[in-house]
């Protein structure tokens, strides 16, 4: 603010709208390099490490998708497990009952989850706040009940994706790993591009004040709908990959609301409404899961930490870094830089979704 008041007396000051800077450009190049390097992990690393990294990628996808809804759309969903479960069971349905090649079945199942998000969105996107939260949850419950009715899908007791046993264990892990890495990269890229378009700006306007956004001509339902479908697709991918990583699923666990707990934890800890935050949150959760995931108090810890972040550090780890050092590694907004002066404003990376 000091620079803004300082420039008030200068009659004309040339300014430049800036999106990239050397740091963020460099980081993006490094990120591409990292993804390429990670693609070679199966060549050098143990099967155990591959499986763990696959889990991490799945967490990154889930966190990014939940953040897309809550952090950019103001939509707190506790029912994204619906799409995780739909895609996992969809892959079994296609691969097991219709002899589609397993990994193709998983891809199609993720797409189906995205398509199912359209009618679901038409129902729940009319709801606000807590009503939206519980509405999505009821939808997830309905899908879990419907799956449990179908004895061909193993009913309530669960089912294995037997078709995956045609691969050798090593190959299966490698294919799953690459699928997870590829899905994560593609989904994050789609989200990154989406948020940088005009739609990204309108989404944040919707989140901050839906009425005001609508009054200046923002198409509220369309914006929310696109986010909801992307999140459905992304959570679908996470679900199909979870199936490949676990080989066996049960309606109670794959449709479990605990997935929502994980998503909320990752996003709150990493930083809601920032692009980079959920990735950091996923890494934090990944470490916690590996260290204390077996203890009885695992979920108590997650819940307590999430509450603490929501109340005392609402911008999360990354949001706090952004506030303090004004860095952005993956810029989705703009910055106004006055020529001959310091950067003036941070136009993007809004206040937390919470206001």
């Amino acid at each position, binding site marked *: 603010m000091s620079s803004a008041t300082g420039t008030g007396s200068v009659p004309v000051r040339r300014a430049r709208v800036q999106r990239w800077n050397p740091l963020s450009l460099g980081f993006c190049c490094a990120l591409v390099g990292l993804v390429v390097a990670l693609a070679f992990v199966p060549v050098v690393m143990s099967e155990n490490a591959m499986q763990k990294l696959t889990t991490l990628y799945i967490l990154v996808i889930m966190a990014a998708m939940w953040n897309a809804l*809550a952090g950019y759309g*103001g939509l*707190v969903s*506790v029912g994204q497990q619906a799409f995780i479960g739909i895609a996992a069971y969809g892959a079994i349905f296609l691969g097991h009952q219709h002899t589609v090649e397993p990994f193709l079945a998983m891809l199609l199942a993720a797409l189906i989850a995205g398509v199912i998000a359209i009618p679901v969105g038409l*129902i729940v996107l*009319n*709801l606000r*706040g*807590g*009503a939206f*939260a*519980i*509405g999505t*949850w*009821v*939808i997830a*419950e*309905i899908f879990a*009940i*419907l799956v*449990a*009715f179908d004895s061909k899908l193993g009913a309530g007791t669960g089912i294995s994706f037997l078709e995956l046993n045609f691969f050798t264990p090593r190959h299966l892990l490698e294919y799953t790993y690459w699928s997870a890495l590829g899905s994560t990269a593609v989904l994050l890229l789609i989200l990154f591009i989406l948020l940088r378009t005009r739609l990204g700006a309108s989404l944040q306007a919707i989140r901050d004040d*839906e*009425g005001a956004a*609508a*009054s200046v001509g923002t198409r*509220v339902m369309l914006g929310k709908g696109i986010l909801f479908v992307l999140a459905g697709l992304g959570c679908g991918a996470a679900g199909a990959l979870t199936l490949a990583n676990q080989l066996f699923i049960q309606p109670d666990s794959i449709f479990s*609301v*605990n997935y*929502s*707990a994980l998503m*909320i934890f990752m996003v*709150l800890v990493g930083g809601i409404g920032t692009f980079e935050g959920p990735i950091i949150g996923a890494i934090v959760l990944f470490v916690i899961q590996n260290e204390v995931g077996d203890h*009885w*108090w*695992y*979920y*108590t810890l*997650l*819940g*307590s930490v*999430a*509450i603490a972040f*929501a*109340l005392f550090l*609402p911008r999360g780890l990354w949001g706090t870094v952004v506030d303090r050092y004004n860095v952005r590694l993956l810029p989705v907004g703009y910055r106004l830089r006055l020529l001959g002066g310091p950067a003036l404003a941070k136009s993007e990376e809004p206040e*937390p*979704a*919470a*206001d």
Partner: protein
Amino acid sequence: MTWVNSIVHGIFLGGVYALLAAGLSLMFGVMRIINLAHGSLALVGAYAAYVFVEHTGLSAYAAIPPVVLGMFVVGYLLQRTMLERSLRAGVLVPLLTTFGLLVIIGNLLERIFSPDPKSLNPGVLGTTTWQITGTLSISPFEVLELGVAVLVLGVLQLYLTRTRMGRELRATSEDPDTAELVGIDSRAVYARAAAIAVGTAALAGIFFGMRSSFDPSSGPTELIYAFEAVVIGGLGSLWGTLVGGIVLGVAQTIGAQIDPQYFDLAGHLVFLVVLLVRAAIESGAIGSTRGVTA
């Protein structure tokens, strides 16, 4: 005749749902937040009654006064500590913190009481039946349950409309800032509403536990039933909540009459249909109300 039976039992079942939903409805009405831990707090009430019965050997009914009073205090403290801060932080934050609470309560209950189902004994009221006609019989417990629901909702209604505290509550829900201007302590009003909400939730939890067994994962289920009752009945109306609970209960028992596994599904579907009909009505009238609703 079996259908009449299901409908009658559904009406009684609806009483518990209405009782469960009353607090949720009240908190939403006053604070505009949906407490996602509401069902879990009801469940805590049931477990507290279970512990009381185990230790004293008294009936579950004797557990009602101490448990409900205790949960009153819990609700008050919850508002004063966590919820008040959440409300200040933004509209979405209460959802996140109450969801965190739901996760913690479920986890702790599982640790303390194991995942095995528990139940509370409704006593002789639950085992006797009154034969109404050849095939229709009801139990005094069901009548008591519905009676308590109607009584609680009635008292709440009177409290809201006839007492000074109730007026303050309504004034605060309309406009907290203006209410403050005329000397109402809105934080105290919120804390009172939360205390009542959690206290009635615990009462509902105890009745729920006498009707069917419960386990540490029942909290979310009770939340969903309560929320469905509130939405079906229309937000912001206590008698509407009673109607909503009864519609939900009847839908479930009729579903179960067709096939026992349709019990939950039928309730969820009625809820969805109500949502869709509401959305259709709103979009039909959008030309005239857009400025208000947008």
